[in-house]
């Protein structure tokens, strides 16, 4: 069974509760945050593979949150959820490093597939980073 570590950030608690329970049933380890500020704090304190992030939230929106997340943890994969996906928003999100942009209500099979793909992508990035670090150490020490 897979064990993707997922954080859902959305201000609609009835949404995050139900989505988290469904994802847990599918073998994922899920945490939830009801605001961007709480979500960023959660990311600082815990390790996640994927963040499922609402685009429109009070105080700080999804795009702003995405920028901070990618700056703090570039390997972290972010899937944005939005009520209305537009091409412009999609392009902006991708440019900022989002893995995907899905429209609400999202299909669970699609979302699960995207999360699995995102986790695999994160593993590749983490491995690459490790390889580079080892290469750097070897070069520094003249091995």
């Amino acid at each position, binding site marked *: 069974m897979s064990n993707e570590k997922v954080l859902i950030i959305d201000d609609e608690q009835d949404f995050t509760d139900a989505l988290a329970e*469904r994802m847990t049933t599918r073998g994922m380890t899920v945490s939830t945050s009801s605001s961007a500020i709480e979500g960023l704090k959660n990311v600082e304190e815990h390790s996640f593979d994927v963040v499922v992030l609402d685009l429109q939230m009070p105080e700080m929106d999804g795009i702003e949150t995405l920028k901070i997340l990618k700056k703090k943890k570039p390997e972290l994969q972010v899937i944005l959820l939005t009520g209305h996906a537009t091409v412009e928003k999609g392009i902006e999100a991708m440019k900022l490093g989002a893995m995907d942009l899905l429209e609400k209500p999202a299909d669970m099979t699609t979302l699960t597939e995207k999360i699995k793909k995102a986790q695999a992508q994160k593993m590749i990035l983490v491995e690459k980073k490790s390889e580079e670090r080892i290469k750097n150490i070897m070069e520094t020490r003249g091995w």
Partner: protein
Amino acid sequence: MKHTAQEIIDQYGPAYFGRMGASISHDIKNCLAIMNENAGLMSDHLMMAQKGVPPDIDRFSGIVQRIEKQINRADDIVKSFNKFSHSMDKPEQQIDLDEAVGLALNLGARIIANKSITVTHTRAADKLYVNGSFFFLLFLIWSILEKITENLASGTVLNISSMEDENKQVCLSFQCERPFASDFGLQSSDQILDLFQAKIVLDDQHNRADLIFGN
């Protein structure tokens, strides 16, 4: 320069209608998303029950309640939008001022929530009426609200209350603990103020604006 109602509608109507429509459709999508996840959750539980896991009645009841809550929420949103859509039906009518404030707030609820500003509404003890176009009154209330909340810090509480002032004129008061915009030079608002023979009076501390109707 005086503008006719038709000129103002042509100039500002579509933008206001579009803005509210976008905000409302976003809220409806959120309701649908919650219903979708809870229906899916119910389906997951049914599948588990088919595999022999005893169904948890309390869990089912909780899921049903969440779906019902969203149905009511979506119904309220659609009712507001329907009222808004019909606000252009009559060029002039007698309008319940507090009903207009309530509708303007419902329509822009998401936009206000995104600014993290709380707006409270204190209704007058007796009904107060204004004569004019319902659509323009909604637009006027919204324009003032947008102007006031433009530079307000998140967490601010703004109260809107309706009353009759000392001159027995119907008045809508926007008040908060912090100062807001120093002027109301909104072209669109000025033109609509003329339609209601209304004026905006800003107090010295710039934390209260009274919309006083002349008709």
